[in-house]
């Protein structure tokens, strides 16, 4: 195995060159370049994190805006609802009043008309009774020759009219 056979002869030069090359690696690459590259990565990560944070904040703000918009919408709508409700109630009340008044008018007219009809009917009935009684008086006189008083004839006629 040359690695072991040659150790005595070559260890000094190997260690020398290793220290030289690894020293260069450590001081130039490890201490010089590594932190810079890692710093770039960290800076980029930070930038990305900041951007994400900003986006998140903007999102939250947009949500808040939407929420306030929604609340305002809700308020406006309920106000409009109330307004509609109120005007509807007002209109209802007005029409109710008008209807009642009209009803009352009509009822009064109907009552007078009914009273008129009733009086006329009574008048007519009286006339019919009078006429019927006279007719009955005449009939009785002609048929039987008996004299019937007007009052008796009227009484009989009323009774006959009542029974149909």
């Amino acid at each position, binding site marked *: *195995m*040359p*690695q*072991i056979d*040659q*150790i005595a*002869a*070559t*260890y*000094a*030069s*190997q*260690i*020398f*060159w*290793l*220290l*030289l*090359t*690894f020293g*260069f*690696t*450590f001081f*130039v*690459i*490890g*201490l010089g*370049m*590594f*932190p*810079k*590259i*890692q710093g*770039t*990565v960290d*800076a*980029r990560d930070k*930038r990305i994190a900041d951007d994400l944070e900003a986006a998140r904040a903007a999102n939250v703000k947009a949500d808040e805006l939407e929420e306030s918009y929604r609340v305002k919408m809700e308020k406006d709508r309920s106000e409009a609802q109330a307004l509609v409700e109120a005007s509807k109630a007002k209109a209802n009340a007005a029409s109710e009043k008008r209807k009642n008044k009209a009803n009352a008018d009509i009822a009064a007219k109907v009552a007078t008309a009914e009273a008129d009809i009733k009086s006329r009917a009574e008048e007519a009935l009286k006339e019919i009774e009078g006429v019927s009684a006279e007719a009955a008086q005449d009939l009785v006189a002609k048929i039987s020759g008996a004299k019937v008083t007007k009052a008796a004839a009227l009484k009989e006629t009323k009774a006959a009219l009542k029974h149909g």
Partner: protein
Amino acid sequence: MAAEEGKIDPMYQFEVQTILEGFSLGGQQIALTNSAIWMGFAVVALFLFMRGGMKRELVPGRWQMMVEGFTGFIDNMMEANVGPAGKKYAPYVFSLFMFILFSNVLGLLPVGVLGLHPFTVTSHLTVTGVLAIMSFSIVLIVGFAKHKLHFFSLFVPHGTPLPMIPFIFIVELLSFLVRPFSLALRLFVAMTAGHILLKVLAGFVINSSNAGAGYGVLVGIPSFALMIGISALELLVAVVQAYVFALLTSLYINDAENLH
């Protein structure tokens, strides 16, 4: 190649060859070897890769995305295993992970086709040992600096009955001391074994084909098919071993940092 007729040495690939004599440092000869060159390749490739991710644009391109994938991966690993205190170790663990990963993958490059000889730096115990000792030292230094002698309570888990404490302490101490060896050996063995297997199979292909068309079809083609599969597996191992090394390092650092 050191391959004579019927003799292909699967260990040859691990040999460290001196390219330039180099210089002397503290009585030791520091030669420019193929190992050093491949370490250099790995670091240059890693540097170029990282350069592509340095545009630092807000919207990343593909390359930057890829680099950020790696840095984010290690960053998350430290965050998950160590917590907020893990951030300051991320550069070290990242260097460790990327260095091992690039060394592993570069060692698998099929540059042999071009006449080059790929060399896997992390298949050498010396290299993995030094890396493991570095991680272990960080754990020790951080542990003692942060918790002083209280750090030894790491070896006594909560709720241990009093008479058991000495035994548990010894067992936990041993497991703690074995950590650098397990780190070093795991990477070294994983890289070595896979490379040997690939070379042995390649030897089968070459030798059986040389022995005749019949052998070539019977042994060579299945071996070659197996090589393709194992190469894919080796790529996976290259990544997984780098990950395991970094993961265990982060877990050990967590022990030192958070102490239960």
